[in-house]
């Protein structure tokens, strides 16, 4: 076991990790940040997407020890300190972009990365960007709609919520 220290949601945090401990596992089990979810073991589902030094990555593709000294942002750090949802989170609630909620943290973190780099994406760009995030509940309709709405685009012509 080695000690690893990283800045998580702006706060320095440390814990012990084996060489084989994944960042996703370290966040969930060692730091108790269970908002990052694990939905597969082949880096396909995207439920564990977090930002490491400002870049969206699947936390299951990185060892905890590799994140030594890094700045990590997770779903727990997205809302304001008083709990107010950010604009993207609020768009997901407004447009019913989640049902069971399990893929949602990864969807939010992945979509935030898209909007940072492409503030006004087209529908096709949103769908392409979500290639690595699987949702089984929504058929993606309201997820895509919520992301377009969060980017400030008019979604009123898109059929039913």
């Amino acid at each position, binding site marked *: 076991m080695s000690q690893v220290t990283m800045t998580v949601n702006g706060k320095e945090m440390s814990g012990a990790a084996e060489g084989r401990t994944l960042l996703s596992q370290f966040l969930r089990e060692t730091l108790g940040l269970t908002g990052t*979810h694990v939905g*597969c073991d082949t880096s396909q589902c995207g439920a564990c997407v977090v930002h490491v030094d400002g870049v969206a990555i699947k936390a299951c593709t990185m060892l905890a020890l590799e994140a030594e000294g890094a700045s990590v942002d997770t*779903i727990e750090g*997205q809302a304001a300190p008083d709990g107010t949802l950010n604009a993207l989170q609020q768009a997901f609630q407004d447009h*019913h972009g989640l049902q069971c909620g*399990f893929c949602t943290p990864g969807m939010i973190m992945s979509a935030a990365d898209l909007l940072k780099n492409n503030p006004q994406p087209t529908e096709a760009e949103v769908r392409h960007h979500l290639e690595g995030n*699987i949702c089984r509940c929504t058929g993606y309709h309201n997820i895509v709609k919520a992301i377009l709405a969060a980017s400030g685009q008019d979604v009123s012509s898109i059929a*039913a919520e």
Partner: protein
Amino acid sequence: MPKDNGIGASPKRREDVRFLSGTGNYTDDIQVNGQAYVHFLRSDIAHAKINGIDLDAASAMPGVIKIFTGADFEGVGGIPCGWQITDRHGEPMQEPAHPVLAQGKVRYVGDQIAAVVAESVEQARDAAEAIEVDLEELPAVVDMKAALADGATKVHDDLTSNLCYDWGFVEENKPAVDAAFEAAAHVTTLELRNNRLVANPMEPRVAIGDFNRATGDSTLYTTSQNPHVIRLLMGAFVLGIPEHKLRVVAPDVGGGFGTKIFHYAEEAFCTFAAKSLNRAVKWTSTRSEAFISDAHGRDHVTKIELALDAENNFTAVRTDTHANMGAYLSTFAPSVPTWLHGTLMAGNYKTPLIYVNVKAVFTNTVPVDAYRGAGRPEATFQLERVVDKAARELGVDPIALRRQNFITEFPYATPVAVEYDTGDYHGTMDALENMADISGFEARRKASEARGKLRGFGVNCYIEACGIAPSNLVGQLGARAGLYESATVRVNATGGLVVMTGSHSHGQGHETSFPQVIAEMIGIDESMVEIVHGDTANTPMGMGTYGSRSIAVGGSAMVRATEKIIAKAKKIAAHLMEAADADIELKDGAFSVAGTDKSVAWGDVTLAAYVPHNYPLEDIEPGLEETAFYDPANFTYPSGAYACEVEVDPETGKVTIEAFNAADDFGNIINPMIVDGQVHGGIGQGIGQALLENAAYDENGQLLSASYMDYAMPRASDVPFYGVDHSSQTPCTHNPLGVKGCGEAGAIGSPPAVINAVVDALRSGGHDIHHIDMPVSPSRVWQAMNG
């Protein structure tokens, strides 16, 4: 103006806040003090005799607490099956033993051989690799028809064959059905496969067993759609723990789709091991493990025949289906190809004669059970495909042929034992035709052709039976459980309400929609109502959520309990206002005396119930809390019409969904936003089945598509925005809300529309093709086009 409170409003979901901020409480988020971890050693061979298991090296590995094998479970009950089918000859189905850990033989890739409990999950996995198992491989039985051949290897040595049952429905109708085919002017025949699927809720299954030696109480935290059912099945039939010493908690659950209904061996193991070791034991499935341990869905092979008279009226339907049970009977497996499938074979049509034959077969594969729709998608797919083929053979418009044969008078008793209470099939078809812009299709087809693509349009109808259903009826059909639902409504002294429901929400948004009903009934704001579910310790015995039954059955129980609350509250109000009970009216959260200006607020009455200083103690008890159990009089029958437009690239065989429209009749709707979302999700899964998903086994019983690298889940770029319409509403006549249920419709109604559209596209390109089996992958389409 849309409502902002009560029935018909679409308030934002209150559960979203925790899910969006990473503060949900899913089972894997729970850490019980001192918990140990279990890893299951699973068979990588489909069929083998266990000659020996050597645990010596593994037991000495670091962190290992104990390794369990089948021998530790001798004298413990097996995993029970909850439904018994009686076959065509009046005999009960063959029902094999289903041990918690394999005893003597392994019967599918994934079967549990041993369970290693260790201080960490890594240590448990490491030790499992050091277990030496002497397996003597036996021939694997994978193909259903081969499994029924003379001399086939038996999956279960103590059964007479691999045939679970041979079911005929309605058996007495068979001679008349056969005669109708003899007399038919036209017969259309289609052979097809309903592909095996893996449900794949995004949250893998998790179980944590806990035991309190001081009290003797066991607790199981589990990813379940129905914690009370798990408590009863596991307590009474497997471990022998009475309900009052066993608590089952299903907290936030990340999707179910049927596969989290069933009682699984891992749940029994963790509960058993926790007591045996006096320590909490946790199991978290990996996704790869889920593929070989979650019950699969569908997997029917069917021949369907449709007989028509000279005027194109349907005169008879006859089907012959083989349904895969897998290696063991999962909890409700036998009911799926029978009562949830055969009873739907009338569809939306007034076909007078129907005969359904189903042979359920054991194979060396993962057990198969209910997956979103469960039997009804299989029924709808074959019926709507054969109707489409008939239209083509007869040279008539497929919509016109359907309309000609629609049931139009209700109630309608089908020849397959169910009675539809309401419906308006022309109404949903009208709505669909409006949405789908059929008149513009030819122009869109020409535009596609100009780009070198083939374009096709497909339509289908569906009927489903939801809100399962009268307990006395399902008991006659072989169910070993009742199918009522329960609710306790507790009114607090200051007027807020808590509803404890046996329904379970794992994505459906009950915490938002159930309060809307009570808000409507009392005339208060939804925020005054809280929903509690998912814990046997604080909810009344209920049967849980599946079969689109939550609002139809669970919601009805809540209405009944609330009616009792209102009746008692009116008595209290009458006392406070010195009026007669019968004169009290409740409106907008206030009680008034009819014809006067006297009134008391809801909160005044609730306070009086708990501070009964001025109270009719001689007539009624203090307090305001009521429970109701609701057992429905019938199933509910949602229906609809769906249309799909596809483009096919003839160079590659790739199919893209260009448009998908759905018109559903769900009766009354509580929350339109949530209902639309349910339809979207169902359509996404239906498109997945039609285009992408397939649980494929090789001839040795190896699951070839056992991870997301190989099993093609639908992604955002595989689907379009969907059009949905719920304007056609014929309320259910036998439940107090007039609701029908909406959870499964999308998955039931969408696959045939996709395939009908693909066949239409290929035929427009001159290919004489009547059917392609799902999933219509590029290779299958290309091969169909290129012979």
